[in-house]
């Protein structure tokens, strides 16, 4: 039988249809079907620090979570608000420096500096990005890509905040477990919080701004206000991640504005699945440990992940998450045409 006479059809699984809506409460099996993926993600993330052998890999888990927070903020901005922000490093750097300044110069404890860095850093980033909000598409992408480089050069040129040496002598978290559970917890809160947010009325407006901003404007809604709000949410998340990074490494410096922090979260989003919010987390869980494993190969690991990135963009542009979701919810079979 040649392939011309056949086609593949996809049908929703019975249990998926049954567990939509209120009918999910019919039986334990249907409820388990709904809860399983979320439970596996939460339990898996919470168990990770316990399962890791040695301090080195536990540290890797913290870094994974920090990248994942930046990645979901990128995913939220790009696929729910339509602002493609290539400046993840800008948020990380601003948050890191604010936490560093408050801790090293004013002696505040990490528990105080991290929320402070999130709020103040979010406001600072939103204020700086405010003039760029009317820009669209590639223009917004380029201007946000330039911001972290600009900040790094400013700090270098004016020799402020320790110049090229950075701020040294910053407090760390009280113990390794506090550090890991803190970032894992924050990641989970942000992940599920954002999933809630995009389903509220406000999330509807965000999506409308992405799809057709003129129509939103015609409805008497101020789009700049909503864009600024979305940028504040995303940048506060990025700054919080940056503040955690500063306290983990006990140092904040120019390299926090490096392109790595802009590119790796985007790569994770592409690989994990754009527009799914959980996808970027999965992408980070794969990419960051792989790049740690390849550390012995030096810069070859960057070549490696750049190649994976291009391959995913070309051949699997919907990402792992969409693929997994399809397998979980639908059956595939060949049928005669």
């Amino acid at each position, binding site marked *: 039988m040649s392939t011309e006479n056949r086609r593949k059809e996809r049908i929703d699984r019975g249990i998926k249809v049954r567990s939509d809506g209120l009918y999910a409460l019919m039986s334990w099996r249907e409820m388990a079907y709904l809860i399983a993926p979320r439970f596996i993600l939460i339990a898996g993330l919470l168990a990770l620090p316990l399962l890791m052998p040695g301090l080195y890999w536990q540290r890797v888990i913290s870094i994974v979570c920090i990248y994942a927070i930046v990645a979901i903020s990128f995913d939220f901005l790009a696929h729910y608000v339509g602002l493609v922000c290539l400046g993840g490093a800008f948020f990380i750097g601003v948050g890191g420096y604010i936490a560093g300044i408050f801790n090293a110069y004013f002696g505040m404890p990490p528990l105080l500096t991290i929320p402070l860095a999130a709020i103040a850093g979010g406001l600072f980033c939103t204020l700086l990005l405010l003039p760029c909000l009317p820009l669209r598409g590639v223009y917004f992408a380029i201007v946000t890509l330039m911001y972290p*480089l600009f900040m790094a050069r400013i700090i270098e*040129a004016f020799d402020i905040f320790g110049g090229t040496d950075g701020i040294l002598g910053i407090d760390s978290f009280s113990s390794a477990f506090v550090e890991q559970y803190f970032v894992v917890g924050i990641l989970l809160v942000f992940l599920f919080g954002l999933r809630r947010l995009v389903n509220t009325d406000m999330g509807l407006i965000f999506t409308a701004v992405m799809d057709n*901003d003129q129509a939103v404007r015609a409805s008497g809604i101020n789009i700049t206000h909503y864009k600024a709000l979305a940028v504040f949410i995303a940048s506060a998340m990025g700054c919080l991640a940056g503040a955690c990074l500063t306290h983990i490494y006990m140092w904040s410096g120019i390299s926090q504005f490096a392109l790595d922090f802009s590119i790796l979260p985007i790569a994770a989003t592409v690989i994990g699945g754009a527009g799914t919010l959980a996808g970027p987390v999965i992408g980070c869980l794969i990419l960051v440990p792989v790049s740690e494993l390849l550390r012995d*190969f*030096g*810069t*070859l690991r960057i*070549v490696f992940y750049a190649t994976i990135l*291009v391959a995913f963009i*070309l051949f699997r542009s919907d990402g792992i998450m969409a693929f997994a979701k399809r397998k979980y919810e639908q059956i595939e079979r060949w049928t005669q045409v």
Partner: protein
Amino acid sequence: MEILVYGTINSVSLALMGLGFAMVYGISRVPNFAHGALYIICGFVTWTLLQKIGMPYGLAIVLSLAANGLLGILMYRLVLIRVRGMSISEIISSYAIGLAILEGLRYGGFRGMTYTLPVFMDGMVIIGGVPVDYHRIVMVVIGILLVAALWVFTHFTRLGLALQGMAQDERAALMLGIDSDFMAMLAMGFGAVLAGVAAISILPLGNIVVESGYHVLIMSIAVCIVGGLGSWMGAFFAAFIIGYAQILSVVFLGSHFQMVVALLAIILTLILKPSGLFGQQKELEDRV
């Protein structure tokens, strides 16, 4: 006088860097973020042909330019053609290719200060009390000749007119029988060759280092944004504005500010007038 002479030299070298980027974006609307990588790889290919294989300088230059053009064409044919029109995928995939090339070169052992290309001509001349070596003069001449040649090419040859037609309106060009994918591929090839020309005329002034690939990318984006994306004459004039601004900032503020000026120019231009000084796009397309 020093400012005038070195400002001109700096401006022309910026224009050389930016022309390739402007040409690719102008014709195929692909922001080629691998531009810096193409620049550096051309330098290393020339160095390899010259020092390892021992070819004459002229032959090495011609061969490496051809190889660079081929690389650009392959990049378009294999990767970029599939994501054309999706601006974010274009940026990410071309940047990833550039990253792979640059870091691959670094892994391949091309690092340190040992890689230099010979200058075209030795010696120097005094212009208005400022010593300038011949190579810098040759570079300025190459830059100006290149712009003139591009102008003639796009205005008077069949192929050039086809490319220009595509830059103006791709659909109309398609209707008139211009194969837009083929033209975009050629544009990418030309862009890569232009990056190579820039590399070969600028690199003999210093060492070939992988890091300058990122620098070149940022400078060419700066030039193209200020001049207006897609307008390569705009890019040429913008190169003079940024070039002089950089030299002035170095003289009066310090060498750290060279990059600050370029990045500030990008950000300010995008905020105040996103279509750039000579941009042909309608204002409405860039802004809400």
